[in-house]
């Protein structure tokens, strides 16, 4: 049973849409030197890490060099795929008119050909976000990630499939558009996908040759160290990106939609669906960069083609809008969000799975966030931060002594969701996840 959606009137939805459009135009109008310098700095860092990583692995017979090489190459691949590749291919930097940063031409350091990704991700996933039956990112045709997906005996293996998928994530992404589940169901023939398979092979072959043949051979007797180092870097990138991406739409409290619900949707309605169908991760600046700023999944889904390093400052305004309109804003630290994703993977291995989900009556409770809390946290946000950097998950005033004192922070950047924490009781939970209120 899907989580009941917040009840906004048509006027409210359109008002929200207008405000988001204004915000969007304001940010687009402000893009310039700063954004260009930012992405070039990230690219320079990534290329530097790549060269350092590959260089160190040539000395991989020394354990510290191997570890350093794997670390540098992993970071390079993570930056390449997430903060650079994913974002550039969204058209976030098309306005620069630099062919090297052109969404249509960019290729990334992973097995999936960029043109297939652009279709399945930019169009299918971002247009039909969390619409069951339309958004193939709900389980990628392999996992059962929604109670709305009918249970099959093979779903008993959900946790194992998920583990395998995490380890081989780049291959899962590459095979995404093959729609294996539809071939299996006999809806389409294998032959229909032959051309696509050929194109995946053309791209993937070079990736394999590079990491597992050419660089190891160049290392001569050091080949095993280079080979294992490259494999380790690919693995850590796979695990990391799986974790971040699965935290985008699957944590407890994200909303799902039926095709009917998404039909004839207005622009405002589309915005609303993006906001409540996505979930954020809290963390420090480096964490956000390494997540490709997908930690700001809500902002990313509302403005997929705005440079992602802007999401932290945009989030301040988006969160404030959510407060005013009574729209839940799902956000939490990685361990909590990913924990709830794992729980979902395990729970949905068995038939049904709606057990943890809310009775529809809870929907009404979503409407308002307690004013006392919002006033408190947001006055801090506006005075404490100039908008540039998202830092710590908790507003100082709301931090409980039992939490790590080191996380006391000068900003309130990701405060709303924190009210869902144990100290704050049910009223806080309403803001995060309406579903839990009645549970």
């Amino acid at each position, binding site marked *: 049973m899907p989580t009941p959606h917040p009840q906004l009137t048509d006027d409210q939805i359109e008002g929200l849409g207008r405000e988001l459009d204004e915000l969007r135009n304001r940010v687009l109008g402000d893009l310039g030197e700063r954004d260009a310098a930012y992405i070039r700095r990230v690219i320079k860092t990534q290329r530097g890490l790549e060269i350092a990583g590959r260089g160190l692995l040539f000395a991989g017979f020394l354990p510290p060099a191997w570890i350093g090489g794997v670390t540098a190459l992993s970071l390079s691949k993570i930056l390449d795929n997430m903060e650079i590749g994913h974002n550039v291919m969204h058209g976030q930097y*098309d306005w620069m008119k630099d062919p090297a940063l052109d969404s249509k031409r960019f290729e990334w350091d992973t097995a999936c050909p960029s043109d297939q990704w652009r279709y399945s991700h930019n169009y299918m996933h971002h*247009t039909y976000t969390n619409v069951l039956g339309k958004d193939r990112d709900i389980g990628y045709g392999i996992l059962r990630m929604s109670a709305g997906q009918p249970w099959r005996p093979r779903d008993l293996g959900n946790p194992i499939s998920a583990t395998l998928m995490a380890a081989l994530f780049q291959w899962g992404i590459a095979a995404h558009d093959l729609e294996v589940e539809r071939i299996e169901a006999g809806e389409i023939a294998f032959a229909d996908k032959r051309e696509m398979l050929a194109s995946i092979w053309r791209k993937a072959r070079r990736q394999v040759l590079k990491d597992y043949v050419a660089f190891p051979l160049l290392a001569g007797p050091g080949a095993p160290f280079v080979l294992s180092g490259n494999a380790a870097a690919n693995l850590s990138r796979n695990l990391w990106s799986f974790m971040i991406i699965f935290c985008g739409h699957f944590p407890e409290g994200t909303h799902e939609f039926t095709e009917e619900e998404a039909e004839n949707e207005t622009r405002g309605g589309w915005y609303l669906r993006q906001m409540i169908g996505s979930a954020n991760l809290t963390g420090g600046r480096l964490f956000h960069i390494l997540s490709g700023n997908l930690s700001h999944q809500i902002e990313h889904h509302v403005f997929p083609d705005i440079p992602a390093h802007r999401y932290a400052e945009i989030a301040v305004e988006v969160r404030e809008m959510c407060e005013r309109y009574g729209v839940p804003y799902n956000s939490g630290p990685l361990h909590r969000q990913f924990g709830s994703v794992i729980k979902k993977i395990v729970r949905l291995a068995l038939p049904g799975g709606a057990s943890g989900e809310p009775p529809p009556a809870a929907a009404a409770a979503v409407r308002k966030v307690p004013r006392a809390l919002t006033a408190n946290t947001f006055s801090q946000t506006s005075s404490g931060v100039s908008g540039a950097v998202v830092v710590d998950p908790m507003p100082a005033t709301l931090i409980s002594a039992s939490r790590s004192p080191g996380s006391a922070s000068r900003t309130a950047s990701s405060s709303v969701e924190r009210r869902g924490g144990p100290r704050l009781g049910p009223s806080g939970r309403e803001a995060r996840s309406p579903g839990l209120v009645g549970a």
Partner: protein
Amino acid sequence: MLVATATRRFLASPLVDLLVGPHGIDRYLELIRPDLALREARAEVTGVRHQTDRSVTLTLRPNQAWGGFSAGQFAAVGVEIGGVRRTRTYSPASSEHGRRGAVELTVTSRPDGVVSNHLRSRIAPGSILHLGPARGEFVLPAARPQKLVLISGGSGVTPVLSMLRTLCDEEHPGEVTFVHYSRTRADALYRAEVEALATAHPNLRCAFVATREGGGRLDADVLAALAGDLDEAHAAVCGPPALIDGVRAIWDGVGGADRVLAETFAPPALTPTGATASGTLRFLRSDHEAAIGAGTLLEQAEAAGLSPEFGCRMGICHTCTCRKSTGTVRNVLSGEISAEEDEDVQLCISVPAGDVALEL
């Protein structure tokens, strides 16, 4: 030199291409120095001088990737301003036999010219410019004409000066007459240099006319007085449309319409926003045309029977992004105008603001 060539060969080899995939070697070389790129034409600015208040003359050293030019041609020049690469076309003023491939550009700024003003006041030696391949039919025949009149108006001097300098480098024996029109004497470009060339080459005559300071407009008599009999003469003219029309009329008069080589330049026409523009939509790949109607470029292309790729139809997924070769379009969401040649536009949220040619 040999080492450099060998290094370049190695860097361009399939093995290196595999190792630096999927980004390609240029994405790494440019981090060392932008003009080291093997495949992307770029130039380093080596000299900056100001002949007049409104102009700048830049000397460029293009990298190996640039294929050179023929005198009279133009090339796209890209410069980054506020994070955005802006592209304009300029004709080099230097000889096509320039020393070590050096290229000279003279840019006259217009009051609201974003690029020209930036080039005039913000570019310093060491700056990097992007170059497109040289294009254009405004070139001298391979068999150089024995009698040639080079006529230019304002900033149109650059391609004809390139022709003149090229002919001088080639020790061309034929008669050449060079006439340049500017608004004021102070606006005249390259006067000292052309006069020096005329001193050195007895077969070259030159005249500089300031139209707002008593200088006469172009007519057949003035030209005949300078160049003599026009019966066999070829003309190469670059300037505003009126100047070109004048030259054509004169050559028509002596039955030599086919001996006129001309190029004009005009700022891109901006159609005001709001009402539906009129004009023609050209779809270059499918060789199809349609009158501009209502709706976005995507809708109009579909109405014309084409099936461009598309996705969200609301400007977020960039699936329908398409190269616009020429023309002006307006983004209906942001109101932003795209007027430059060879720009990518999102079909689903763009409407034409005049004639548009799309790579569809």
